[in-house]
């Protein structure tokens, strides 16, 4: 099954949703409702709700909210007498100092665990503050390997970091290229100039030659960049076989449009955490520019039943399916599972429960969870490709929903 683009809610789907909720409540026999009002477990979300990354923060919140709502609908944390999960949002304002202040505030407000970070700079400072307060901190999307590499106790990352993602991206690229008879030999990297884009580019520039690709150029651009025409012109002049972009959503969109408009004769666009490539909004609005773009990114395993329910629930909530939503949803499930097993809101116990987690009932293509030094060992990205109106998983093969279309068919 491919993940369908979320469309407008049909009336029936909302009715189904309510019916499903009622059925779930009935199935549980509503024991929680009969008891005295159970207490709540507070989870602190450190997301950028305002500022440069406000869109990503809103997406991240939507993912955590969906998971928390589902858990609460099914009776909350059972080992705590059906305690409900209460999300407390700390707006990091896309700034480290605000993130730290929010961590302090929420840890005094009694949150059992933190989830968030988004960008590496915010994630690094916020997780440090949480460690100082002794509150476990689950990183959602920061990719810097320093997050867990510093050895701070209670700092976890469920998703993959730089090294894992780029290695997986290279494996996928080589496999796809080999399967097509090695048509691609040259690469140009286009990346945003912050921690994430520069990190990707540096690693890729070092590794690509070892895998038989020649890196013709590495083009850094700022966020925001006002105009991608020149990059389009440069790409057309240099004629690389493959363009590998790593940028945030807005820049990614402008770049893809520029490549398309200047008819850069590439055999493939293969992005690493592309920002735009796995965003249905982009695919709906610029379908022609988005066609055949591959992206190695945080992505769900589309074949899991839970993933199918997840995608449907997002459609009902009119939330775009993006990696922030996926990771926050999955992390929230994992945290709830840890609290369930800890049977306590004690932070040290929750931290220990996360550290020993083998949680498997999530939507990511990771297998059972296993944290070593705070990093989930099974975490890996998936490589997707835009095919018509859908985002198909094309790598790793055990999760694939379609075959890669490479090189781009010439019209």
């Amino acid at each position, binding site marked *: 099954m491919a993940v369908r683009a979320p469309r407008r809610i049909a009336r029936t789907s909302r009715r189904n949703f309510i019916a499903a909720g009622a059925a779930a409540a009935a199935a549980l026999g509503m024991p929680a409702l009969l008891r005295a009002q159970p207490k709540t477990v507070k989870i602190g979300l450190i997301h950028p709700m*305002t500022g440069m990354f*406000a*869109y990503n923060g809103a997406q991240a919140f939507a993912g955590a909210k969906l998971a928390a709502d589902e858990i609460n609908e099914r009776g909350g944390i059972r080992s705590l007498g059906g305690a409900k999960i209460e999300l407390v949002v700390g707006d990091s304002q896309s700034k480290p100092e605000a993130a730290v202040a929010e961590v302090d505030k929420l840890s005094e407000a009694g949150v059992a665990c933190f989830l968030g970070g988004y960008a590496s700079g915010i994630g690094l400072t916020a997780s440090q503050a949480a460690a100082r307060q002794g509150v476990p901190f689950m990183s959602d999307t920061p990719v810097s390997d320093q997050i867990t590499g510093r050895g701070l106790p209670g700092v976890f990352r469920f998703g993959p970091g730089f090294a894992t993602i780029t290695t997986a991206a290279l494996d996928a690229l080589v496999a796809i290229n080999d399967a097509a008879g090695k048509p691609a030999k040259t690469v140009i990297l286009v990346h945003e100039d912050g921690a994430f884009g520069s990190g990707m580019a540096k690693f890729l520039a070092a590794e690509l030659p070892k895998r038989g690709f020649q890196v013709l150029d590495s083009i*850094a*651009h700022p966020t925001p960049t*006002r*105009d991608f*025409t020149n990059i389009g012109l440069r790409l057309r002049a240099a004629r690389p076989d493959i363009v590998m972009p790593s940028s945030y959503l807005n820049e990614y*969109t402008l770049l893809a449009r520029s490549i398309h408009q200047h008819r850069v004769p590439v055999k493939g666009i293969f992005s690493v955490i592309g920002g735009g490539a796995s965003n249905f909004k982009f695919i709906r*609005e610029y379908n022609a520019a988005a066609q055949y773009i591959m992206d190695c990114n945080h992505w769900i395993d589309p074949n899991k039943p839970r993933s199918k329910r997840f995608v449907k629930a997002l459609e009902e909530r009119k939330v775009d399916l993006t990696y922030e939503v996926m990771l926050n949803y999955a992390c929230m499930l994992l945290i709830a599972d840890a609290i369930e097993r800890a049977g306590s809101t004690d932070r040290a116990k929750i931290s220990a429960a996360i550290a020993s987690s083998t949680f498997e009932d999530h939507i990511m293509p990771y297998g059972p969870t296993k944290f070593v030094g705070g990093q989930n060992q099974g975490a890996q990205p998936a490589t997707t490709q835009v095919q018509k109106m859908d985002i198909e998983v094309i790598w790793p093969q055990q999760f694939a929903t379609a075959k890669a279309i490479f090189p781009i068919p010439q019209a």
Partner: protein
Amino acid sequence: MLADPVFLLAVAFNGLTVGAIYALVALGLALIYGVLHIINFAHGSLLMLALYAAFFLFTLGGVDPYVAVLALAPGFFVFGYLLQRFVIAPISFGRDTNVLLVTLGLSIIFDNLALYLWTSTTRTINVPYAQTYVDIGVTAVALPRLVALGAALLVGVAFWLLMTRTDLGKAIRAVARERQGARIVGISVEHIFAVSFGLGTAVVALAACLLLPTFYVTPTVGYAFVLIAFTTVVLGGMGSFIGALLGGLLLGVVEAFSGVLLGESLGQIGIFLIFILVLLFRPTGFFGQRVA
């Protein structure tokens, strides 16, 4: 690649079309600076509001951005007029540092109002002509870019005519040069201030309509342009329209070439290096000491 004249010409021309947008944004700022001698920190936020206005006219009313100019330019003129007359002037008491704070406060208000009302989602429109390409020999240019370039030049000429050929223009120049004197001869300085602010805001609305087909809107989009607009105004000579126009075009070209030579990231420095060079050798800017 760099020895290829076709490529270089393409880069230069593209720089001009990008510079046209800078010029338009800077033109409004230059007018406001030239007359009121204030730095309008809210300029980027006004651009953002105009982009949203154009976006909603298109998505909800089906009005093409180029048509929307007809409504938005007058609308934003009135908005700017009222803003200066009834908010900025009374609150700042005419003091430079207070104007700075008031416009800063306004930008915080506008940005967060946009975030609250329209969320942080990136919005774009898809007009058919955005994909239309005009072959100008060395390169194919997106139609909206050519339109923006033409519009910038036209607006430059229109402003020049307004300033030199009309009574309003004379009044504005009089106020810009000598406030007290203008007041004595019976010009309402407050009115002229507000008119200048309104005109500056109207140009921003025009810039927004020209920009939207090839760009996007978010609550923070203004910051992408505001720093460059400040630089353009200084480069052109504070308060000079011709300076702002040529400064904007020049910055577009400089940015394009330094982007190609140094990479888009480090290439941003090209603009500021030019800026510092101008500062060292011609501190008044290219067209400084001239009010209109």
